[in-house]
Each structure stands twice: as structure tokens, then as C-alpha cells.
């Protein structure tokens, strides 16, 4: 498809964001329903006494790409992990695709089926082949017939450009390949939202690009994405909005161009001056 031999990524649909309100999602053309992909209101989370997330409000529109950045320990990963309930939270509300996240196990499972997640350390299943990694959840969770799940998986492995590795075990692949398998594995569940938790932080420098390219291609296809990353080039290129977090709070939200050109909050300015040398 459009993925191979692409010299420079074509322009992304410009978000037609409303002025002033930082938290409103851009309304994209051709979207009938106004339901957000994710809507987080008044979210608070404590680890014991430690207030790890404080008063988080964020609305992610369908098809929107949001990059979350901030210093380590600022609660970025925890926020992602609250959305698919890998972490519990004490106060507030998260609505994913119209479903409110409750403690009800069935509801949690239903939401997890809609939300794909890619981890920093890949977390592939080492005892299963690449293909089995990709077909496991569709077969077990969705009840897809094995043959169909394999075709489906091969389709996504082709999209991340490693169909020839389908029969290998994860430990036989490079880090970049493993992370692409992890992306394919999440895509096999046909999620409505993809979350990336520092997907390139554990990779050798030479392998970062292949993973980012895969993510750019995914963005081009209109996938709703929530990405925690320090890859500012990627953020500039792909994000509709950038969320900056510190000390468990959202400090600033803006579109990439103004975010980098004229950050408003002092903390944001400091952070950007540290990472953009």
C-alpha cells in the first residue's frame, strides 16, 4: 500500500479545532456521531498516599492522535493503564467508546477488546510463535475460527512488514521486529483505539525508525491513537494535539505547532528546553 518506499509522509488532515478550549477534540469532517473515543472526567488516582493522577480531564475524538509527554513519574503511563483498567483508579470517570469503565469484570473485558495496547518492553508471549501471538486473542476472546484468525493475522503482519517471521519465536527477532509484532498483535483485535506506552524507549537507536514508520502508517489510516513518547519529531509529524503532564496533572494541551513554538506554562517551557537541544 502506501507504506513502502514513501520518501516523506503526506500531510495529515488538519484538525479543525475550536479556539480557546484546550480540551475539546477536533471535529473531523465526515463524522456523524459526536461520541468521543475516550472521555476522562475528574480522574484521580492514588498509589497509597501518593497522588499519582490528579484531576485529569481529557476528551479524545474519534480518529484523533494524541501524544502525551512529560518527565518520568508524571503519570503518563498510569493514565494509559487506567483507560484499559490495568490500573485501578479511585475517583472520576472514564468512558471508552460510550462505555463507562466500572469494576464490572465483563465491562472491563469489553473495553479491553476495543483498546489495543503496545508496551515499552513488547511483552510478547515467548512460548508462542509470532503468528500464534497474533491469533491467540482473536481465537480465544472473539471466538474467531483458527483459519480466519491466521489470515487476519498475516494481513496485519504484512502491514507491519514482517510476514516472513510468522513462524519464528519472539526471542529470535530483533527489538524493532518484536515491537512491530506487538503492534500487529494488538491490531488483530481490530481495536477502535490504540495506546502506545513508550513504544520506542527500549529499542536500539537503529530500530526506532522502523517502529515509528509503522505507527505513522497506522495514523494515516485514521486510527485513534494515544501515544506516550519522547519522540518529538513523531509528535510534531503525527499528533493532532500534544498533552504535557507533570506531577500527575495535565499542564498544557495544544496542537503541535503552537505547543512547540510558544508553550504557555513555565513547566512546559522548561521541559521543552531540556529535550529540544
Amino acid at each position, binding site marked *: 500500500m502506501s507504506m513502502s518506499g514513501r520518501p516523506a509522509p503526506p500531510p495529515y488532515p488538519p484538525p479543525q479545532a475550536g479556539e480557546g478550549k484546550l480540551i475539546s477534540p477536533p471535529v473531523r469532517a465526515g463524522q456523524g456521531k459526536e461520541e468521543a473515543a475516550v472521555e476522562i472526567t475528574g480522574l484521580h488516582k492514588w498509589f497509597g498516599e501518593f497522588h499519582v493522577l490528579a484531576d485529569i480531564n481529557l476528551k479524545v475524538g474519534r480518529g484523533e492522535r494524541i501524544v502525551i509527554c512529560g518527565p518520568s513519574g508524571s503519570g503518563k503511563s498510569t493514565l494509559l493503564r487506567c483507560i*484499559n483498567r*490495568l490500573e485501578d483508579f479511585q475517583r472520576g470517570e472514564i468512558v471508552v467508546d460510550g462505555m463507562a469503565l466500572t469494576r464490572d*469484570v465483563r465491562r472491563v*473485558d469489553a473495553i*479491553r*477488546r476495543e*483498546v*489495543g*495496547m503496545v*508496551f515499552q*518492553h513488547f*511483552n*510478547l*508471549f*515467548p*512460548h508462542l510463535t509470532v503468528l500464534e501471538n497474533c491469533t*491467540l*486473542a482473536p481465537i*480465544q*476472546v472473539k471466538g474467531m475460527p483458527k483459519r480466519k484468525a491466521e489470515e487476519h493475522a498475516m494481513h496485519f503482519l504484512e502491514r507491519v512488514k514482517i510476514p516472513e517471521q510468522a513462524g519464528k*519465536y519472539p*526471542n529470535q527477532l530483533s527489538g524493532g521486529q518484536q515491537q512491530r509484532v*506487538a503492534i500487529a*498483535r*494488538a491490531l488483530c*483485535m481490530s481495536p477502535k483505539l490504540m495506546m502506545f506506552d513508550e513504544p520506542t524507549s527500549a529499542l536500539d537507536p537503529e530500530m526506532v525508525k522502523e517502529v515509528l514508520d509503522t505507527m505513522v502508517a497506522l495514523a494515516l489510516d485514521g486510527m485513534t491513537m494515544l501515544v506516550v513518547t519522547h519522540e518529538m519529531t513523531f509528535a510534531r509529524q503525527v499528533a493532532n494535539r500534544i498533552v504535557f503532564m507533570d506531577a500527575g496533572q495535565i499542564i498544557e494541551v495544544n496542537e503541535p505547532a503552537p505547543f512547540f513554538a510558544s508553550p504557555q506554562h513555565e513547566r512546559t517551557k522548561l521541559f521543552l528546553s531540556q529535550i529540544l537541544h
Partner: protein
Amino acid sequence: MDAPTAAAAPTTESAALAYVRTAPAAAVSPPLATAGVLAWLRERLFPNLSSSLMTIVIVLLLIWIVPPLIDFLIVNATWTGSDREACLATAERPVAGACWAFIGDRFAYLMYGSYPIAGRWRVDLFFAMLAFGTAWLLWLEAPRRDLGAVYFFAVLPVTSFVLLHGFEAIGLPVVDTALWGGFTVTIVVAAVGIVVSLPIGIVLALGRRSELPAVRLLSTLFIEFIRGVPLITVLFMASVMLPLFVPESWSPDKLLRALVGVALFSSAYMAEVVRAGLQAMPKGQYEAAHALGLSYWQTLRLIILPQALTVTIPNIVNSYIALFKDTTLVFFVGIFDFLKTIEVARADPNWATPVTSATGYVFAALVYFVCCYAMSRYATGIEKRLSTGERR
């Protein structure tokens, strides 16, 4: 990204500092270490004075022990004969060695105990089925090992019971367990311990890691109580106390009581082995499975247990070896296991000679050694496989 500019021509001043490779390094085989038998001997056996002395002492020790042992077990041994006369020292043969004729004569008793001769094919069939199931499970490349597990953990126990105990409806006469004996009983006790302890151990290990306090407390209590008590105590409790808990008319079979005791005991140990394996699983595996929408039980069955059990195979086998030898203790609650049949056979007046007891015990040691060493070798093989990178 910028193209690397390192290949630019160095200026004359920095020529000594800069470097550009013009041809790839040639592949060279590694230097030969010390070679030859003599070099090996010197390096391994006589590298310095203290090691040389140690080598000499050990060689002397072996010279002192091994030849008499060979004399007794093989050179002077009696291989044929029908009663004690064959194994006695005579004028022509002043030193009598091991009396293998005795083992040969009583071999059937050592294997089957008092199991009726007409029904011994049932025991043989049981052995064959057990060997088949064991091979299926232990051979990691075997086809359909999931079916193998079903066979081993579900089909085998039922058919073994029908075969050994009998089932009148299909024409197999019932053989009272009081007649069972010898190696058969040892294998039955060990097999029941092995087959039962793994699933119960897994359940207990999961229970001990459960988030539900009641489940966790019960599992922990059970494990710690059983582990804090010697097996012989558990066996006595099972054989004396079990009848108190069930209706009198239902009075459980003596062998069954011992089996329950052994199974409970080995389950508690297995639980700790499995728990160690579960703890070795990275949290990311659970998270990835949950993020994909797999339920708790699916995560356990498909992701966690296959990996946790594979890493713990050496430890599991280690427990099995301990269990196999511990089965000898059932003889204290009146069960005719292999060791007990040796005890009985060696007291047989037909074979009473000065060497009968020694021969019997040597034979017992050999049998236990062969079984345990086989298990140990298997565990070592698995361990090697796991450590040599090809981690599946």
C-alpha cells in the same frame, strides 16, 4: 536523518587520530588451547601440588573400593541355582559373592508381590500404558502433547484402577489390595503421587497467590501444615485418622489411605515448586494478556502456566525423585512396597545364606538408583535446553 560524514578525508594534522576502515577484517579461527591427552591430564589432574596429591588420594581410594565391589557383584557372584546351596561358600569356591540366583528366583515376587499369577498380565499392561503415557509427556517434540496430558491425567488413572483392582462387570476379577506388592505398589504409589500432586499443587499455588483472603489463608495453612510434618506422620494420620472422618461401613482401603497421605504430602511440596515458577513470570505477561481481553483463567491456562511449568520442570522432577524414594515409607503402615518385599524375601529360609541380605539390598539400591537417575538425567537435559538460548 543526516548522512554520516565520518568518511571525509582526514586533514594531515588529525591523520593519526582519525581512521577509516578500507577492507573488512579477515575471519580467523580462534587459537587452539592446550591440545592432546597429556596436556589435558596435566591441566585437569596435576596442575599443582595440592591437586596432584588429591588426585593420588582419590585414585588410591578407588583402587581400595572398586575391585572388591566388582569381585562381590560379578566375579564371585552366583548367577544360577534353585536354592541356598548354590550361594554357599564351598571348598572349591571359598568366597561367595552376590547371590543373583536368589533375585532371579524371587523376581516375580519382588515385582508383583502376591498378585495372583493368572492376573499378572494386567500389571504388565498397566506398566506398558504408564510407560507410554510418560514417554508421550516427557518427549517435548511429541505430537499432540495436549492429548497426552489428557491421557496421562484422566484416562490412565481410571484404566489403571480398572486393570489393577478389577471390575467384575467386564470380567476382570477384583484383586484385593492386600495382595498387591513389590515394585508394582511402589510404582502405583509414586505414580498416584506424581499424577495427583501436580494439579493439586497448581491449585494450591494459585490459591496461595490469590487476592481472596479466605482462599489464600486456607491454601497457606494446608501447605505449611503438611510441610511442617514428616511424611511418616502424615501416613500414620492418614491410616489411623482417615477412618474417623468417614462412615464406618465405608472403611477406606489400607492402600488407599496411604495413597491419600502420599498425595497430600507431595501436593504441598509441589505447590511451592509451582509457586516459584509463577513468581518468575514477568508482570508484563499478565498485562499483555489482560490488555488483549483474555480473562484470568485464559491468561493462566494459555500464557502463564505453560511458561511457569516449563521453567520449573527441573524442580518438579526433583520433587518427583524425592517422592519416589519417599514411597518406601508406606511400608510402616503395612503396605508391601518393593523394599518390603525384599525384606520378606531375604528372610526366606530357602535362601538363607550370609550373602542373601546384602544381595537383596544391593538390588533394591540398583532399582531405586536406575529410576531416580533416569529422572535426574531428564531434568538435566531439560535444564540444558532451557539455558542454551533456544527458549521456546
